[in-house]
């Protein structure tokens, strides 16, 4: 035993003295033992001062030994990138080299400037921030908020990217058991021995729960903790059981979906870089057994927050499990029997117990007798009314409940127990409504909305035998309900201890006076009088009291404070506790890292990046890419010395003068097959399809029922009963969904099926005067001469020996082809075409050039020139609406009066007065520039480019009554001046349209 670990008691606890570790706190290097938490190691080194409180910067120590800890929050620093604030010292397991710092103090933990807030506390009561910084409004952003932000917050967020990996696992089981204390282990054993598939988790490093400190527990003839360890080993060895320690059930969702987070590397000094730091388990359980135990409450009295004042069960855990005495001369303030056992254990370990102050008037029973027999003074019918000491408690001031003379008793630690609060968080998260048990003053689980049950202390059990009986019954029943009944488990357990009784609320004037600070919520510095103030200010419901005072809103979510807060509010309102209400417990039970929630979805797994089969060719050509949905599309192909502008200018010119190639593989494609295929397309598109002959193409417009354009594309009729439909790149999934919807639910009698073939075919658009010459060198079995293959025709043949679906069509206004080949051949076909095209002076063009080329022809892009409020007529596509059709999607919607109204916004072309000025897409358009602001806007620019082929800028716009305003001048007000433009027809190249037939 190291001399430095002055509070480590030889022969006590379960840690191995032969396994020392070095750790540091605030830079001071100390020794602990393997298995220590930071809290137990600090106390072993006689350090109780661990942090400063959030609001008043009061010195704070360690209250608990588990996750409910509100005070001892530290910054753990593994390395530069791995630093985490607000880690509970009672949860952090130390490893060799572990380092942590205290938080919320400057310049040091012992001397903290912010503690001036404590003196100023009469001026910063609950609600202070809401009331004080309301006016003037401008001061909020510049003065109040920055300063409050600087002062607030605990710890520091890491500034480097998280270097750790995280993982996720979906799991299914018959029975999930939450908690591996006596209740959880017994329930899991019963379920597992019956044959059920079982998962059992516990948030702590080891199993046992309260058995870690409950020394008199005996189960199955063994000491309680020994039984727990043996049972855990037995369970872990069973094929049908998965036992997870360091694993917190943090969210209980619908239909028994419970989310667990498993901490895998956090307690290790070194680990393999592949190992995830944490893994989230999304468990779907047929049945859930909640065995979450109970949480001890502190006592609410003045100055109850000094370092060294802690829960009795925590002191007992530190002694019996970690072998650490929390002091050498301890006081106890209790309202139940369980704290007596802490006093007895400490006394037996050689610690002086100065006195047990018992709130009860006449405590009696074996625990009290045992304490007295050990020579411990018991002061019944009394309370602690204050404490002394600056950085560590040094005394307690004791007074009879009836009043009278108070007595100062020196102590170096003070243990409290106001009773045990069943941990109903998981039950509450499962949407259960807790029920107030007036007799015992506790909220207990009521009816179960899901297939779950609570057993043990979280279900109100106050003894070990009751706990074991509940657990075995639940485990067996749930296994049986899952159809497993292999074996019945019998266990007998018992203990001399009881966890019943207690008080809640403020004691002995702790809620009186301006300067009295009796803390209810340590982490948010909420005192008893703050809660009374909230009631005085008119808060009637606990939900309002909570938000006004912030009681229970810290990261511990009020695990120790909720019941006290309720009791104080209820007393102030003169109501029963259930009438004031209990706040709903929300997920997560304890804080969860963002990393765990993100899981695998980082870096390249954040979102799929979709590449076309021809992607490698674009990369080789040095293309820049743009994101189109999840697709990476070649945007333009800069050559040496070219910027984007120069590259696009070259590409658009080359396409019209020689020829160009474009990767159109991302287009959505649907194969429509069946005798009713034409009938179906007739109904889906505004255009008629029944008379389209096999071997022909038709441009189609699809509307929604409201008559607005939804998508467009080219449809090929392959055969009487087979069509190849194309959609926009972005519209592919939604068009397929809409078609399936109509087919399945409106017209299920139609004999037609839809199959997505978007990724079956790579598509190469080959456009321009030389296109035919290039293609002719490679195709077989199809005559592509102008006479044999007119514009808007479809043929099948072979290219490079592979099957080809050939569309004679154009989205550039030039004569062109769209060549579909099976995806795995896309690259080879591209490269063969590219070699021949470039030999003639052609080039590849990207999506930007494609946009310019189509705008030069006035071809729309759905989603850019339309926005969900544009009809085919508005877009100048009225010709594509079948006038003789009896029905199609949108037929009625587009006949609504407003959609037929003259003067609607219509798609037109714009030419700026100054040909060098390129309008901004989205810019608003007005009729006259000299209007007062806000001006009357008559439309907006939808597409705008520099057109190298026109030698000037071109644009498209939606303008009210645009078709009747040809030749008129409109104005585009911009921050640096008004731009004048003329309304023209939206065709800027080859208005007669002859080139496509070339």
């Amino acid at each position: 035993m190291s001399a430095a670990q002055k509070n480590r008691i030889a022969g006590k606890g379960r840690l191995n003295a032969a396994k020392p570790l070095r750790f540091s706190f605030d830079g001071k290097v100390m020794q602990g033992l393997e298995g220590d938490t930071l809290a137990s190691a600090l106390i072993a080194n006689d350090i109780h001062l661990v942090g400063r409180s959030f609001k008043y910067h009061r010195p704070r120590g360690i209250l608990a030994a588990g996750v409910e800890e509100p005070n001892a929050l530290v910054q753990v620093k593994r390395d530069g990138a791995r630093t985490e604030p607000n880690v509970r010292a009672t949860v952090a397991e130390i490893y060799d080299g572990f380092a942590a710092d205290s938080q919320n103090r400057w310049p040091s933990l012992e001397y903290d400037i912010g503690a001036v807030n404590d003196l100023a506390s009469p001026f910063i009561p609950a609600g202070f921030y809401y009331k004080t910084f309301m006016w003037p409004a401008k001061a909020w952003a510049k003065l109040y908020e920055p300063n409050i932000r600087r002062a607030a917050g605990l710890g520091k967020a890491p500034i480097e990217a998280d270097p750790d990996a995280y993982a996720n696992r979906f799991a299914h089981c018959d029975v999930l058991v939450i908690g591996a204390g006596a209740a959880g282990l017994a329930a899991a054993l019963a379920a597992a021995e019956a044959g059920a598939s079982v998962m059992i988790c516990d948030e702590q490093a080891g199993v046992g729960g309260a058995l870690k400190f409950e020394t008199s527990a005996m189960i199955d003839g063994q000491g309680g903790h020994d039984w727990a360890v043996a049972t855990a080993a037995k369970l872990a060895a069973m094929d049908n059981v998965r036992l997870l320690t360091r694993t917190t059930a943090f969210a209980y969702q619908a239909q028994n979906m419970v989310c667990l987070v498993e901490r895998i590397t956090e307690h290790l000094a070194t680990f393999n870089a592949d190992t995830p730091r944490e893994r989230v388990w999304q468990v779907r359980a047929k049945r859930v057994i909640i065995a979450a135990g109970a949480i001890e409450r502190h006592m609410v009295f003045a100055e109850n927050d000094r370092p060294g004042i802690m829960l009795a069960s925590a002191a007992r855990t530190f002694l019996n499990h970690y072998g650490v005495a929390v002091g050498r001369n301890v006081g106890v303030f209790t309202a139940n029997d369980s704290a007596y056992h802490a006093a007895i254990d400490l006394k037996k370990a050689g610690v002086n117990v100065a006195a047990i102050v018992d709130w009860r008037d006449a405590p009696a029973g074996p625990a009290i007798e045992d304490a007295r027999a050990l020579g411990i003074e018991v002061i019944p019918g009394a309370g602690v009314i204050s404490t002394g000491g600056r950085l560590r408690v040094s005394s307690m001031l004791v007074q009879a409940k009836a009043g009278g003379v108070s007595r100062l008793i020196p102590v170096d630690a003070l243990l409290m127990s106001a009773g045990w609060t069943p941990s109903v968080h998981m039950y509450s998260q499962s949407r259960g409504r807790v029920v107030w048990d007036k007799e015992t003053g506790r909220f207990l689980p009521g009816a179960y909305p899901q297939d779950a049950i609570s057993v043990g202390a979280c279900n109100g059990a106050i003894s070990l035998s009751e706990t074991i009986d509940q657990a075995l019954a639940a485990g067996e029943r749930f296994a049986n309900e899952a159809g497993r009944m292999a074996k019945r488990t019998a266990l007998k357990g018992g203990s001399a201890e009881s966890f019943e009784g207690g008080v809640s609320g403020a004691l002995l004037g702790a809620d009186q006076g301006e300067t009295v600070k009796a803390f209810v919520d340590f982490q948010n510095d909420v005192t008893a009088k703050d809660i009374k103030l909230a009631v005085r200010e008119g808060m009637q419901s606990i939900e309002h009291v909570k938000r006004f005072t912030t009681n229970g809103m810290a990261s511990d979510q009020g695990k120790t404070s909720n019941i006290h807060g309720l009791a104080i509010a209820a007393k102030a309102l003169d109501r029963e506790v259930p009438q004031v209400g209990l706040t709903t417990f929300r997920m997560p039970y304890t804080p969860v890292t963002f990393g765990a929630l993100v899981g695998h979805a980082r870096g390249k797994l954040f979102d799929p990046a979709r590449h076309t089969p021809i992607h490698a060719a674009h990369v080789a050509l040095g293309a820049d890419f743009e994101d189109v949905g999840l697709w990476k599309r070649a945007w333009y192909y800069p050559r040496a010395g070219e910027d984007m502008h120069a590259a696009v200018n070259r590409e658009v010119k080359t396409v019209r003068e020689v020829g160009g190639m474009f990767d159109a593989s991302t287009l959505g494609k649907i194969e429509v097959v069946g005798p009713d295929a034409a009938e179906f397309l007739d109904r889906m598109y505004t255009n008629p399809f029944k008379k389209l002959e096999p071997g022909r193409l038709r441009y189609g417009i699809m509307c929604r029922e409201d008559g607005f354009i939804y998508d467009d594309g080219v449809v090929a009729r392959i055969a009487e009963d087979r069509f190849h439909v194309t959609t926009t790149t972005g519209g592919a999934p939604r068009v397929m969904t809409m078609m399936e919807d109509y087919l399945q639910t409106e017209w299920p009698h139609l004999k037609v099926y839809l199959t997505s073939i978007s990724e079956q075919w790579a598509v190469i658009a080959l456009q321009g005067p030389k296109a035919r010459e290039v293609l002719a060198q490679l195709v077989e079995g199809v005559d592509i001469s102008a006479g044999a293959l007119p514009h808007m025709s479809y043929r099948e043949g072979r290219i490079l020996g592979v099957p080809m679906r050939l569309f004679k069509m154009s989205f550039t206004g030039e004569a062109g082809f769209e060549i579909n080949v099976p995806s795995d051949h896309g690259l080879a076909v591209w490269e063969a075409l590219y070699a021949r095209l470039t030999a003639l002076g052609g080039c590849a063009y990207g999506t930007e050039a494609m946009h310019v080329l189509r705008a030069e022809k006035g071809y729309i892009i759905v989603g850019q020139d339309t926005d969900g409020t544009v009809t085919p007529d508005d877009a100048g596509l009225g010709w594509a609406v079948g006038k003789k059709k009896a029905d199609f999607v949108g037929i009625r919607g587009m006949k609504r009066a407003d959609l037929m109204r003259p003067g609607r916004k219509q798609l037109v072309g714009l030419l700026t007065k100054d040909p060098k000025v390129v309008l901004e897409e989205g810019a608003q358009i007005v009729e006259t520039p000299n209007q007062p602001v806000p001006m009357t806007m008559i439309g907006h620019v939808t597409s705008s480019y520099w057109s190298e082929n026109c030698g000037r800028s071109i644009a498209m716009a939606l303008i009210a009554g645009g078709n009747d305003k040809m030749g008129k001048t409109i104005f585009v007000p911009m921050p640096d001046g008004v731009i004048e433009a003329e309304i023209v027809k939206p065709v800027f190249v080859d208005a007669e349209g002859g080139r496509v037939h070339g």
Partner: protein
Amino acid sequence: MLLIHCPYCGEERPEVEFRQSGEAHIARPQNMADITDEEFEAFFFLRDNPKGVTFERWRHVHGCARFFNAARDTVTDKILMTYKAGLPKPDITLPEKTLALTVDPGVSGRSLLPGDAK
């Protein structure tokens, strides 16, 4: 994440495989071109937003890809039953203060009554 019973797959599957698709049992008029403005309004725009049982369309889009219908209690967010598209709207009235069923009674034939889960 809910479990949703797909009436085509015959089993409960995780919610992420499904997409909700709006209110069920709104038939597209056969004489679409001829309906009045009021009829079009009722068909296209007006939707119920009940407290209690609602009937809605779902698609098992990442499963069998079928559209089907579900009766869901908007108070508890429990799906009371699912049934194939085209079947008539079932008659479901929730007894007052009854905990919603946790298992689809229409398909699995097993219902869980209040208290059963305790």
